[in-house]
């Protein structure tokens, strides 16, 4: 069995919130996704991916900002990893 990995970045910490960014890694070798290859997300929300058979295996923790850095912005906050096995 080979793994396909879908990473979705959502609008907030809820799995049913809107997809803002995404990445796809294909262990089957059938596709070669890369940076900047699509303007349209594969799903509108995280739960839509679940309904299509993707299995969630990791989600971002909610981590309080470091004192003194409450207004800093950095990486995408709400990252969800999904897999399919083929």
């Amino acid at each position, binding site marked *: 069995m080979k793994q396909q990995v879908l990473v979705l970045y959502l609008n*907030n910490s809820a799995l049913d919130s809107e997809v803002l*960014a995404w*990445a796809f890694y294909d262990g089957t070798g059938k596709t070669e996704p*890369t940076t900047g290859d699509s*303007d349209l997300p594969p799903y509108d929300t995280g739960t839509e991916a679940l309904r299509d058979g993707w299995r969630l295996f990791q989600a971002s923790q909610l981590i309080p900002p470091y004192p003194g850095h409450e207004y800093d*912005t950095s990486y995408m906050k709400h990252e969800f990893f999904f897999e399919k096995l083929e």
Partner: protein
Amino acid sequence: MTTTAPLLSSVEVARFVATGFHRMDAVIPDDLNEEAIGVFDAGIPVAYYGQPVPKVYEEGSFVRRLIETPAVAGALHSLIGPDPTVDHHALHVREPREGAAQALHADAIIDTRPDAFDVQLMYYPHEVTGTMGGTLSVPGSHLRRTNESDTGRYQNLRGQSRLTCPAGTVVLLHHGIWHGGRRNDSDTRRYMFKIRFNPTVPQVRLWDTSDLDDPRIAHELGRHFPWCEHATGRLEVYNRIKLWRAMTGDASFDIDLWATRVANRPGRVA
């Protein structure tokens, strides 16, 4: 480098503060674009300078004529100021059918300056079509504190810009913007020449400030980008307000009280 070239307006600079770029389509004349290909094919090695423009590029040289094109010179002056130093330059070539895109990144290293920024000039001497792998960039990402290609996991973001442009287009970028060269799926070689400039003066009111009270400034600075989380988007506006305050010298500037209310501590001095 002094100039009498047309300066940007306050609204245009506010748009740069919000988006992280200023784009000028077909701003370089055709004869210079045609000359560029020969110059680039002869080779331009990556070089680091830290020297003023006249010491790096001879008067009348191709690059001097490129950056002295009035619209380019005016926009550069508006953002980086007079007499910048050349940090480095590099020629980026994406070969036909090249296998992979660059990882999404910001150049150099994480940069925490709150009141200064470098400007990167990107010049495209020929038309860039959708399949030629024009530069991917993420409008509004430049104030995020991330280090170089640690963002490489992000393949696509809503509202990203996959550059297509006519020949002679120049884009000026804030140093922090997330970007990368896309995979070239065409049969045509793609060129992009980049120069990074460092400021040598405080970047305060360097543009045409006659429209500094234009209400469109707040509209530009308050923009929300489709890739940005709703909550973090509010912090982005806050950080743009701080940068606009630094660039205008107006410590009272605000939009919808975002910066004012969180600094309001009546009766407290420390």
